[in-house]
């Protein structure tokens, strides 16, 4: 059907698609959630604000309302959910900051990566493949997950510093490495789920 697709983490307006109205709650998620536009975030404020916003927009609040209001509510509540998801997940938040700065991160076309980093990735991948055959697979997996976690914390720190001084090329570079680590993290999760099931 197609060769490639790009997942948008943002809700896109559906004006033409269903003649539906676009929930125009805010220009951007940081404003919606009353947070400064930067990487570090106050999770408690975020969560509290999320509950307030859902309290105002959730379809349960409009169960007996008119069709127009119910449709608004589904879209507004979806928008709030997506905003919350985008801001609370560090990698998504970083990608969002990049998109607000007009920087694109295309994982598929842009392949120039630090050779050293790629080498490390190959080693991590090999370690992951070796888990099943290890004497204690769960312990081996836990060790890899810890290593991934600290590597992720490192790139997150790099991103935080680079984005704070608006050094977008450096921020983008950190995010690209982060995406690799994230992908490995998901593979480790899947492997963990399979080990759990056995």
């Amino acid at each position, binding site marked *: 059907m*197609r060769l490639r697709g790009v997942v948008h983490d943002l809700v896109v307006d559906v004006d033409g*698609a269903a003649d539906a*109205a676009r929930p125009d*709650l805010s220009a951007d998620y940081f404003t919606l959630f009353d947070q400064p536009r930067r990487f570090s975030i106050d999770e408690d404020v975020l969560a509290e*604000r999320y509950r307030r916003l859902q309290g105002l927009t959730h379809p349960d609040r409009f169960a007996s309302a008119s069709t127009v209001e119910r449709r608004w509510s589904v879209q507004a*509540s*979806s928008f709030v*959910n997506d905003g919350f998801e985008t801001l609370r997940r560090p990698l998504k938040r970083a990608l969002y900051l990049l998109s607000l700065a007009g920087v694109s991160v295309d994982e598929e076309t842009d392949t120039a990566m630090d050779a050293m980093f790629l080498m490390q990735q190959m080693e991590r991948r090999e370690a992951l493949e070796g888990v099943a055959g290890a004497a204690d697979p769960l312990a081996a997996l836990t060790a890899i997950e810890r290593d991934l976690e600290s590597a992720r914390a490192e790139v997150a720190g790099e991103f935080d510093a680079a984005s704070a001084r608006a050094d977008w090329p450096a921020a983008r570079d950190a995010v690209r490495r982060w995406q690799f680590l994230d992908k490995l993290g998901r593979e480790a999760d899947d492997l*963990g789920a399979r080990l759990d*099931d056995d």
Partner: protein
Amino acid sequence: MALLQISEPGESAAPHQRRLGVGIDLGTTNSLVAAVRSGVAEVLPDERGRAALPSTVHFSPDAITTGHEAAMLAGAIRSAKRLMGKGAADLEGHWLAAHHRFDTSGALPGFVTEAGPKSAQEVSAAILGALKARAEATLGGTLAGAVVTVPAYFDDAQRQATKDAAAMVGLPVLRLLNEPTAAAVAYGLDSGEEGVIAVYDLGGGTFDVSLLRLQRGVFEVLATAGDTALGGDDLDNLLVDWLLERVGVDGVPDGQARVALKELARGLKERLSDETSVPVELEIGSHRWQGELTRETFERLVAPLVDATLKPCRRVLRDAKVAREDIRAVVMVGGSTRVPAVRARVSRFFEREVLIDIDPDSVVAIGAAVQADALVGNRADDDLLLLDVTPLSLGLETMGNLVEKVIPRNTTIPVARAQEFTTYKDGQTAMALHVLQGERELVDDCRSLARFEINGLPPRVAGALRIQVLFQVDADGLLTVSALERESGTVASIDVRPSYGLEDGEIERMLGESMERAAEDAVARALAEQRVDAERALEAIGSALASDGDRHLDGSERAAIDALAGAVRQAVSDGDRDAIRAAVEALEAGSARYVERRMNASVHAMMAGRTLSEIDDE
């Protein structure tokens, strides 16, 4: 309309008018209806004081019999819930196929009855109809609607089938609510507990486990997992097989003998909750067996089944990234959680005592009743908020028979996600979309929800067009997919009505066929309902215009809405139902932009006017 709701969340349009909302637990073996009366949620019993209605239906040419009475009749249908949203292909190898005869000639597999083939939806509709009648008789009025519970792990087809069943008996569904979420509501409001709790729900025919975070009236589902083909019934079936082996009968006896055996098995299971050994005497035809069943034997028999429920338990912990020690309480739901072996195993898994002081049979219906009461606008303190998730990932077929996930499982709903696709051939003018649900990578391993096409694309070189596909899951967990090509403005959309789902016309046909609602009553009632609707719409728009019409509308916009409102008033006084409906719809459509403007503005105002310290002070 509820235009006032956003500024005054606690008030309904007409506070003096208490609307009737009920919670219905539509179970595989038993169903219940509950309502909030004088501030207390309680199960509504039948005139003989029985709370549970066996989910058993008997169809004859002149009558539909449900519950206890149906259970006495030969040919009664049981466990129809297991077939909700399933097609003829799903019947192959299904154990139900061994117990009922099916007609697979139609769009939906039908149970063969004296009154012709009946779909699982029609069987469920009969049960919902009986519960609706019970509730209306008990509460003394027409129901504004019901919250109907479904297993959290129900897929889109199964949810849609449940809604269709309610539509057949004219029961408005306020919300489909996941069973473990309903249980958590009942438990959370009752105990005042906060923090993360696990709900282990072993129903008659399904198993679910959910992790929820409870905090100040907010019930947030973190993750859910389960198995819709595994349930407490299976414990009984294992016991039936064991008994047959003892007595020396090969194969499964049919009809009444099987029912009697299952009754015996259920009785034994229940007695073994309190006793360590039960004497058994069994006679089938010329075969006789006398012996005893010990709890130990029973536990050995069911151990694999109980262990099978732990796999979803591990998955929710992993998905929610919650450690076992962070769980505050484990709530047990479903009659089968009375079995000591189940409790012991779950206790051992979560490394804590499980909660058994709530009635596992009624907790789901009670929670649904609480939400129903809130949804119809009776709850003054509007602090109850349920944030649920999609149980299964949703995606699209891509090249190579692969599934690309658009919305991953355990995403909070409602949710909208867009994904862009591009053409792969020069001059391509159409694109086929195949919507799937499930966790596996291959198309064949996932459930096919719908196929549709976007046509009339302008011919361009491969990759030049961008087609945006939008997935929208509503608060009932139901999916709508639309596709848009921006350059030409070509649009296609589909409410995901699975291949084995019902078309709207089919529901109406079944409604006409199976319901004995007096036609004239129905017409009169429909007119009355339409009038009430129209008056509510007028009242809402009137008070909205009075408060901020000038701020959001210019002169011509205002005049257009006034004209539409005038048309509604005229239609109400003329008394034609269809004309009233059309006028109300025109008013709603014509005021849509205004309504949205003021709703957005009020959310901004509400949020801007509050700081965190104010929120903390509450």
